[in-house]
């Protein structure tokens, strides 16, 4: 038997130990850890602002002072073995392209992978992701629910840059526990919709003022299964309705609704 002094891949403690070590190092460089998201670190020095975001071993750095960013990189190089990948191009399978207009984010490769995995590369295109929701708890149960669950899981990840499928995916994910044949057909329709424009993503404009806007809407007793109402909520950090930053939809627990 040997006693371990350092963590090794495969240990269950490993991710926590790595993050606590990283946090210690970054806090020593007078960064403040965000209370809203522990993987976000911010350093203010007069008007200079440097922001660091970490996801396991991927680090994203931004800020208004290039010297401070360089300094931070050098500091991290002294503490860890780090590869500098330069400008942000790919982060968690999100492709990032920058131009004068702004930053374009898309998940083209990921979308194509989903289409390929479903065997729909040669399928006929459809122009919209879902017909009016008539999905209910009827129909033949799927023999292997895992295929449906995996597909919807992939679609959920794709909604990061595809708010146009958010609603359809939200409906599909209601049936994750007990998927049936009509649900699978509806999910594959979303895949066929993706095929019409797999590179579709979001353009984050460079000439936008950072104003937070919120929108909401509701559909009274719209769910055919429970007769419950559906409410939707959308928050975007822009004044204009030109892209969606975050969309949430959830069932309200109202069965009766006063008019």
């Amino acid at each position, binding site marked *: *038997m040997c006693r371990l002094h350092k963590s090794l891949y495969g240990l269950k403690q490993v991710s926590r130990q790595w993050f606590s070590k990283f946090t210690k190092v970054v806090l020593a460089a007078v960064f403040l850890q965000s209370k809203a998201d522990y993987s976000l670190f911010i350093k203010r020095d007069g008007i200079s602002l440097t922001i660091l975001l970490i996801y396991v071993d991927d680090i994203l750095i931004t800020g208004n002072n290039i010297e401070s960013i360089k300094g931070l*990189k050098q500091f991290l190089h002294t503490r860890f073995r780090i590869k500098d990948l330069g400008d942000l191009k790919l982060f968690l399978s999100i492709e990032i392209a920058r131009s004068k207009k702004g930053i374009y984010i898309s998940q083209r490769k990921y979308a194509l992978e989903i289409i390929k995995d479903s065997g729909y590369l040669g399928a006929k295109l459809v122009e919209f992701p879902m017909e009016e929701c008539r999905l209910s708890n009827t129909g033949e149960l799927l023999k292997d629910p895992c295929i449906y669950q995996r597909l919807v899981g992939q679609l959920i990840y794709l909604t990061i840059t595809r708010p146009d499928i958010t609603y359809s995916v939200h409906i599909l994910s209601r049936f994750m526990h007990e998927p049936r044949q009509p649900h699978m057909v509806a999910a594959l329709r979303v895949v066929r919709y993706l095929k019409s424009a797999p590179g579709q993503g979001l353009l984050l404009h*460079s000439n936008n003022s950072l104003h937070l806007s919120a929108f909401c809407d509701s559909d009274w007793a719209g769910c055919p299964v429970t007769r419950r109402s559906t409410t939707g909520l959308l928050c975007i950090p822009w004044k204009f309705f030109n892209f969606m930053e975050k969309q949430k939809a959830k069932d309200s627990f109202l069965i009766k609704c006063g008019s």
Partner: protein
Amino acid sequence: MVTVHCLIAIAASLNWPLHQLDVSNAFLNGDLLEEIYMSPPSGLRR
């Protein structure tokens, strides 16, 4: 993911540079505070 989204959006509208770093063998960096024992794999010689 919302944080990543917001950060990219802010960097876009304020024209901030966005850089990416990748830590090699990140998980080998952690220090262990608790006692963990393992038997060395067979074939390992000191």
